[in-house]
């Protein structure tokens, strides 16, 4: 049986700027992310990792080529439709500072559920549950500033996962973490992938992250240099 890819990129090019300052960040990228993938996206700085993750997550649109997320093409979508698509299909974990500082850990998560229109009692339970899942029981009411970097990233992972998206994209999620915390965060994502089948694509330089990947994609100068499953 053929499974449909969750995200599929066909002939994707991304060009930033114009004239002399023009940067060709992605060149003719063809890529399919399959359900259950736990993929790492590596490559030298400037190779286009972030740019590609942004395309895959509907944060940005290609200069040419097509991106299809869960059967929906991004072509011609307006800002509001792209927001909706991200809300319903994609979870993001960024490098750092991606929580709302005035909301507690639990509220940061509930917030996403509210955007989904979930009633408040259900929201609260769901947020508690997912925080327990990522090992933050007891820290629900702390604000981001009262949490360590690793704990903040766990909240971010919980927030990315809570609405059960089709795919979670993480761009250098461990860049600001020490090795022990990095290991814990990767283990967490890996476990979530195994237990719930959540699809992850993680942009990273970090060998400790790559160790766990089941699929390793290498970018070089905006092209896919290799794409191997293990």
């Amino acid at each position, binding site marked *: 049986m053929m499974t449909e890819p969750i995200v599929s990129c066909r002939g994707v090019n991304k060009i930033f700027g114009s004239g002399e300052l023009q940067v060709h960040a992605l060149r003719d990228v063809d890529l399919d992310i399959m359900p259950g993938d736990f993929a790492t996206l590596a490559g030298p700085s400037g190779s286009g990792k972030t740019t590609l993750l*942004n395309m895959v997550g509907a944060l940005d649109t290609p200069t040419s080529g097509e991106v299809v997320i869960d059967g929906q093409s991004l072509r011609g979508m307006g*800002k*509001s439709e792209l927001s909706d698509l991200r809300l*319903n299909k994609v979870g993001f974990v960024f490098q750092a500072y991606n*929580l709302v500082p*005035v909301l507690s850990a639990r*509220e940061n998560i509930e917030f996403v559920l509210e955007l989904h229109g979930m009633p408040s009692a259900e929201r609260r339970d769901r947020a508690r549950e997912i925080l327990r899942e990522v090992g933050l029981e007891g820290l629900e009411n702390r604000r981001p500033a009262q949490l360590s970097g690793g704990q903040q990233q766990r909240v971010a992972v919980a927030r990315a996962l809570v609405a059960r998206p089709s795919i979670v994209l993480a761009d250098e999620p461990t860049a600001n973490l020490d090795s022990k915390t990095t290991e814990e965060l990767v283990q967490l994502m890996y476990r979530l992938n195994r237990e719930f089948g959540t699809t992850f694509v993680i942009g990273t330089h970090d060998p400790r992250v790559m160790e766990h990947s089941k699929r390793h994609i290498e970018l070089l100068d905006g092209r896919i240099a290799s794409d191997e499953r293990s």
Partner: protein
Amino acid sequence: MIASLAWRNIWRQPTRTALSLTGMAFASMLLVFMLSFQFGSYDSMKANILRIIDGFGQVQPPGYKDDPEITKVIRDPSGLIAELESLPQVTTASARANGYVLLANGERSFAAAVAGVDPVKEVRITRIASLIKQGRPLRADDDAAIVLGEALARNLRLKVGDRVTLLGTAMDGSVAADVLKVVGIFRTGITEIDRQIAHMPLDRFRETFVMDGAVNEVAIIGRDLRDIINAEPRLRAIAARHDAVYLNWGQLQPAVKQAITLDMTTASLMYGTLVIVVVFIILNTLYMSVLERTREFGVLLAVGMKPGQIGRMVWMEIIFLSLVGTGIGIVLGMGLAWYFGRVGVTFEGMQQIFSQWGLPPRIYPRMTPFRVLAGPSAIILLIAIAGIIPYRRVLGLEPVKAMNA
């Protein structure tokens, strides 16, 4: 939760927010107090001027105001008076007859406006009785008596107890002549009144001027000018039933009305400027806070919040801020207006000018819902409209660019 988020966002920069709130509160307080004060002074000015002679309103024969001829009359005022006094807003209605006459004392003679008044009722309408400086007011049992303005008495070289000769035209066109005893001399402080006005008993006046029970006007008064203003439609209807017209305070004292309008116009310019300055300062603060949060808005967009939702959140922040700021201002302004409403405000050395305008030496701010809410509402409304600027900036955000900002 968006509302709660907006509320918390306001308090991220407590000092900045406190400063914004102080600015808004101060402006609102000033507006509440100044409007209460200004309108309060208009209230006393109107009431004082109207209480000298006119009353809070009058019923007159049609055309009498523009061309006050003694032949224009209300034939039998008793029914009219009873109907007017039956209104709860009207405390007293009093009939008057007016004649433009020559008053003479020996060689000297001066033109004057003599009114025949009901000495008992008139005490409740005009302040002439309380402004008597020599002698006494008119009494119910007076007959050939007259009280006159200080300047008029001085011009005629009259003292209390002297006799004065009156010459005019009676209602039937014959010569009206009488000799009256000066019982009192009043001073209102308003030059035209003190130089021209004299009061005598209505009955004697009607005899002298052959009026046969008719009068030229019925003046009314109520506890508060506002009551009479509110009763205007009914007063008009009553006047119409008696083939007469009703004149409100503005028609009786068009100059006062004009002066108030002029004063209000210049004051409005000042208030408007204050409101606009405050709105721009707040807008600037909010716009800065929006710029500072560009990255965060990028993340919110990434997790699926719509640009419009973020825009509304920012809009809510500015509205919350202005509600709190103006709310504090309203409370403070009401406190000030309440306090000075009790003790009054005096202006050293201004009494002379004030009295020309019928203002008492002490002015009492008076609050009404309009006076309290007009200024703060204007601030909130303009801020809500100005909020479109940060709102539009948020709508223009692109998630990736915003996160890299």
